[in-house]
């Protein structure tokens, strides 16, 4: 299959995925698109929202659609790392001898739902660090590779703060996107009621094979990006670094730390997925701008002043988008 055919296949697959998810999920177009972008880019997603908005449903639906091993971990305060990663157990062999054998935890799947991830202790949360970045697990002195593709789709509740542990910065940075799930509109809610309170329950069918997904991930990485577009991504990320020459004024005023290079990577990869999904062969400034909020919002750390004024990282990023010009070079006769 040549590139053109691959691109056509990607568009077809993307459309099919959107349609299949749409059978179960009502509304939340941005969330669905963001999740799909992360999956095609090979990144993890943190879904944040109040209970009952369909976060878990979305991940479960994805598990149904993608022909990939799916596991769900319900994070609780007493959850231990071994409960996620697995542990060595004493097992009796066929000849009656006893020996330690590694019992794989739920992390050993392609699609992992980390439900209410902020309810586990930092120690348990940190068990995911290696898996999310290196896609491997080290237990009992032995490192075990996870099978590709590997996605962690985590959810967290922003309001129920008692008995929760905020995710550490290193953990947050490993998420490709942080998607904030909002309330549905009236029409969407009506549709939700229709679908969930009647006899027929919509069910998504499995349409994507593992190999196809891997191919698409490779295709995404081939999408060309012009130098000045990359430069825009870099300038956006650098603008979030407070107290530097490149910092946007608002970043210097309200941020304690800016985005890591993973933020820039996320911007470009998400841009590529968006470009291809919209029928283009190149990444545009608009693609990067569309990815700025989900890719960078969890990578910025507010300072005390911002906290005191009730500012959010989304507000700061929107201001940075206004401050950083798309094209740094002078256009010949731009008015």
């Amino acid at each position, binding site marked *: 299959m040549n590139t053109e055919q691959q691109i056509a296949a990607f568009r077809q697959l993307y459309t099919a995925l959107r349609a299949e998810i749409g059978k179960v999920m009502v509304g939340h177009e941005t969330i669905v698109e963001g999740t799909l972008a992360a999956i095609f880019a090979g990144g993890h997603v943190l879904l944040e929202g109040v209970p009952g908005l369909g976060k878990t449903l979305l991940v479960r639906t994805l598990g149904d659609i993608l022909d990939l091993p799916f596991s769900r971990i319900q994070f609780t305060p007493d959850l231990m790392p071994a409960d996620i990663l697995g542990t060595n157990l004493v097992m009796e062999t066929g000849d009656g001898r006893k020996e330690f054998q590694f019992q794989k935890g739920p992390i050993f799947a392609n699609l992992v739902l980390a439900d209410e991830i902020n309810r586990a202790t930092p120690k348990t949360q940190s068990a995911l660090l290696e898996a999310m970045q290196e896609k491997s697990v080290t237990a009992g002195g032995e490192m075990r590779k996870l099978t590709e593709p590997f996605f962690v789709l985590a959810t967290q509740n922003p309001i129920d703060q008692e008995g929760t542990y905020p995710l550490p910065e290193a953990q947050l940075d490993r998420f490709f996107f942080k998607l904030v799930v909002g309330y549905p509109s009236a029409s969407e809610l009506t549709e939700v009621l229709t679908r969930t309170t009647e006899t027929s329950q919509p069910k998504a069918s499995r349409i994507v094979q593992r190999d196809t997904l891997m191919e698409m991930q490779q295709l995404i990485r081939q999408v*060309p990006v*012009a130098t*000045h577009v990359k430069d825009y991504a870099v300038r956006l990320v650098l603008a979030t670094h407070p107290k530097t020459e490149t910092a946007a004024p608002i970043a210097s005023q309200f941020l304690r730390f800016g985005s890591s290079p993973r933020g820039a990577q996320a911007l470009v990869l998400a841009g590529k997925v968006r470009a291809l999904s919209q029928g*283009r062969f190149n990444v545009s400034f608009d693609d990067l701008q569309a990815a700025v909020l989900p890719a960078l919002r969890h990578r910025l750390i507010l300072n005390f002043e911002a906290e005191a004024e009730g500012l959010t990282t989304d507000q700061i990023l929107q201001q940075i988008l206004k401050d950083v010009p798309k094209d740094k070079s002078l256009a010949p006769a731009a008015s």
Partner: protein
Amino acid sequence: MSDLQVIQQALQRAARRGRWLRAWRGLWQGFLIGAVLWLVFLGCYKVLPLPAPTLAVAGAAALAMVPLGLLWSGRRAVTLAEAARWVDLHENFQERLSTALEVAGRPQAGHWGSLLLADAAVCARKIDPRRLAPVRLPRASHWTLLTLAVALGLGFVPEYRSQELRKKRLDAEVIKYTGERLAELTRHSLEQRKPVLDNTQQRLDAVGQLGEHLAKATVSRADALKDLASLTDKLKQDARQLAQNPAYKRLEQAARGTGGEKNSPANARMQKQLDEIQKALGKNPAAPEALDQLKKELQKAAQAAAGLANKDSAGDSQAKDQMSQSMANLAQQAKEMGLSLPGLEDAIQALQAGQADLLVRDLNAALTDLEKMKEMAQAFQQMQQQGEKLGKDLAEQLEMGQAQAAQGTLEIMILALKGGALNPEDLKRILEQVAKAVGPAKDYGKVADFLKKAVGEMQQGKGGPAAENLAAAAKELERLLAEAGDLESLKASLEAMQKASFCIGTGQSWMSGLRPGQRPGSGRGKPGKGGFGTWVDEEGWLEYPEISDLWENPPDDRGALDPRSALDRGEGQLADNLDPTKLRGQLQPGRSMPGISLKGVSIKGTSTVEFKEASMAAQSEAQNALSQDQIPRAYQGAVKGYFDDFNNLKK
């Protein structure tokens, strides 16, 4: 054409358009900068004592900003990559063109490169440079117009300049202009006649240098007046010294007299005119009255010819014959008078040929010629009358100060004496003439001695030695004439210096200021007063001798209007027309002079003004009053002497 070529072609067009638009915007930006620059300078000029050329420089700089802005903005060509990015941004092509252009250039572009180029080519075909970048006034133009409007408004705001500064500036202008005029007059004077005496040459050079110094250097009013006063004193001293020679009085009188010197410029001009008239009118020019009579007869003939032209020629041959006869008589009369009237002869021929139109035309031409001849005859008569005023013999010539005529007479005598073949009667006549001239020659220094010796030699019958003595007398006269010329030059310079002092002292320009000694009211006549004005040199327009020949009333012939110097008359002696007894009121000679208030400085109480400054102000005020005839003629000498004494006090 490949996709890449399509893209490149479209981008090249866009780049050219972009470059021109950038230059257009730069032009307006340059205009704006220039306008702001001009506004700033204008504002500064209004409140600060900047020199006027600053505005011209600022204006030039402001104007230069416009082409500079155009060139600066349009100097660099727009690259294809820049154009691609610009078009992408402007046309919302989602970076298709710029990415395609960049990726197409990569060696590993592969299939992605083709896809990108094909996609971008679709966009490139939609590019219309005119729509992409329409020519419109940039934002800078609005600000430029606003700035220019403010600058225009500011132009009507009066400048803030202190009284002192304005006066200083005016003084500087007057000093500069006066200096220029002084230098120019001196240069002109030296070009016209080089002084004989070294001292006079030095003084005139000093006047010229002072004029140049005043014109070039920034000199204060006080310093300028001081320099002028100092040099004026020296000139006066020199003039007095030269004027002590009684011969100069005679020469000056002769120069000022109606006839003047025989060989003076006016007489030379007159002689030239006489020659020309004589050439035109013949050896014995007819009297103007005879010409007038002839003209009247010719006019009658012309009227008759006009009547003849209107009548039917067939029935009036008798009138023709009569006319032919009268015209022949007229031609004969003209011939007898020595006049040449070709028009009349042509008219006779035209009458014989029966050409009535030509007849009238030729008669009119003859009339015009005759009118001219009549005027010339009148002028000749007048000139002859003037010429008769010259001295008849050597004694009279010396008496009347006609030194050059006397020189001529002496030369004739010398030639006669040297010829040797002189009969006793002629020798006696020469002897009598020379002996008679000894008395008048006493005013001419050594001339009288030489004449006496010549008389002695001639009485002894020695013609040769007598001729030598007469030659020495002629040479002495020549020397005296040259020195008198120097005196005239000195007086002219002195007059110019006084005028310069007056101009600088009163702050009036050279042109508007009246010359010291010049009588106001003797100009072109004032409205509401009786009589008529006389053309005088109020603005220096008569100072150009090369054109003064062109008018009828040259200044040389108007001796009555020239001021008389102290050499002409003694203290208290005035010309007839200036007799003080004619004045009304209490102004009588011998009585005390009525008080005249001078605006310069107060002479009462204690003054903090320095004497030098006060005396200069008083002097210039007095000079002004003298020039404008505020002081009666009878007292002008006293006033002048009084203020001249200030210079001695200053020393």
